[in-house]
């Protein structure tokens, strides 16, 4: 399920997601032979293939009309890691296949389109790359020597300290 410009489409589909980390043109090889990537951000591209139900071609036609509108962009709500991602992007082209049956019946199938994001979903900050300039550390605001944390997939959760016989925190 996804939505375009606030209209939700509950149509069977395959969604392929690509995260592209783009760097600017100022990137290049440095004298120490390392490569300087001036990362601008992470751009999420979605490719969607619909599997329309022959019984509900009305929704399919409506989606086709919406996607083929001559506009420079849409707002999308797309599946993202158990949640949704709000994305502004454009659809450069859409395609599908018209199938003519021997008995005279016909239907459209296999519509496919790609959403090109207008901007990055994740952006580094200038002070982050210049001032900090060092390995990111977890945002554990009450750090003390010996604290331990457990990664629950979203956050580091502090766990109680305990010392063993040699008095070293593990």
């Amino acid at each position: 399920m996804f939505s375009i410009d606030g209209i939700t489409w509950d149509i069977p589909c395959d969604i392929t997601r690509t995260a592209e980390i783009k760097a600017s043109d100022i990137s290049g090889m440095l004298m120490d032979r390392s490569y300087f990537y001036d990362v601008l951000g992470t751009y999420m591209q979605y490719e969607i293939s619909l599997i329309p139900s022959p019984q509900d071609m009305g929704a399919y036609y409506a989606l086709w009309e919406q996607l083929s509108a001559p506009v420079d962009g849409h707002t999308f709500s797309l599946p993202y890691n158990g949640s949704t991602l709000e994305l502004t992007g454009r659809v450069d082209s859409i395609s599908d296949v018209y199938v003519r049956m021997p008995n005279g019946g016909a239907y459209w199938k296999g519509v496919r389109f790609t959403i090109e994001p207008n901007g990055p979903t994740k952006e580094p900050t200038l002070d982050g790359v210049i001032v900090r300039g060092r390995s990111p550390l977890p945002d554990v605001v009450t750090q003390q020597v010996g604290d331990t944390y457990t990664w629950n997939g979203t956050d580091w959760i502090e766990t109680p300290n305990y010392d063993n016989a040699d008095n070293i925190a593990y």
Partner: protein
Amino acid sequence: MYLTYYWAEEEGGEIVIHEKNYDDLKNPSFAPEVDLYALSIPVNQFSVDIVTTDSFSVHNAVELYDDMDGLWASFRIKSADQIQPGVVRLVADTWIADLEHATMDAEMYEAEPAGDLIDACIEAGFPNATHMYEIDSSFSSATVTGYCPEQTARERLTWVLFAIGGMVKQSFADVVQIVPIDDTATLIPYDKTFYRPAISNGEWVTEVKVTAFSFTEASSQAEWEADDSSYRFPLPWVCEEQDFSLTNSDVPDGVPENVVEIGELYLINSGNVNAILNRMAAYYFNRAEVSLDCINNRQFLPGDKVTASMDEESLITGYITQASFQFGLQARSTLKLIGVEDITGAMLTINYVYSGGRIKQAKYFLPVGYAFSIENPFIDRTYQERRFIYAPQTENATGTMTAGGMTVTVEYDIALESYGGNLIVYSVDGVETGSGVGVIS
């Protein structure tokens, strides 16, 4: 980057200054420059395309900032053209160009304070402009002696700066700065320099020559009329001229004579002629020019003296006359260096050590005698599926570079360890926390 535009409106009988920020910028172009030897005062400018339907008034102030609120330029709008619907191409420059439109009368100066004379040049173009520029305090005792014919305020300012050894910095500050040439060199790190700098050699200059002028008052009109050069100078001044020169001792045999001569700049006198010749020699006798690209987030600016690596085993030093910037998240600049000289370097090896074992090594080729202070990085290593972040015990590796090279050892502690979804904090002193929680998992 973003741009701040200022405009004034009359509201209730008062003038109110408004400002608005624009961050949808495209195609920024910015290549500030200085003339280190004040033979001219180049005008700095930038251009940028702004995605907006707003209109801009020519001559209003604009400021260009990076995303850390660092000021790159505080200029005036020179032109603002709509290049397509919803896009304005804005070109802005400094007010220095307008000094060209102000004329200053001929004047004889006798130990005139240089600051007063600079004030007069700028006031000729912009009355009550003291908030628009700063004169470095080192010029407070500098004086100017000699004659200036009727000329534009920009030319007068050029003469004065040539006489006292000043230059005009127009970018990276909210005022124009008039400063002396600074001989303190800043190192452009090897790992901030793009592969690879280029050097070009101009023609040999075999000699620099200037004429110094000495003015005295004629005792009578007859004496004034008898003076050969009196046609150039108003009554009662008569002039004696004396040529001074420096010869380039580095020129190989057989190189044809090529003399650079400054004549008829009447602010050159016996008091400043040696300093002027030395500055000219530093420029014209070092015929090498270097072009190098580096990551430059406002650290290396026109007018600065820098040291840079040409390759793994050679260093040069020189003055930045122009920095042509390209912008991404960070900024990259192509620097043009003049007055370039080779300097002796040696290899600094820094061993980053934890519990007697080396976890990282870095090498820097630095000038001999250079007092280095290199930030010790946090080091991220994974061993047998355990990830460690090591924290340095000291913030910087410091010392003075010795001939033949030297090695420095920096001790580390484990700051953090993560394995199997667990994270242990061992040492937090000096640790700067961030939001990169996804990195350790």
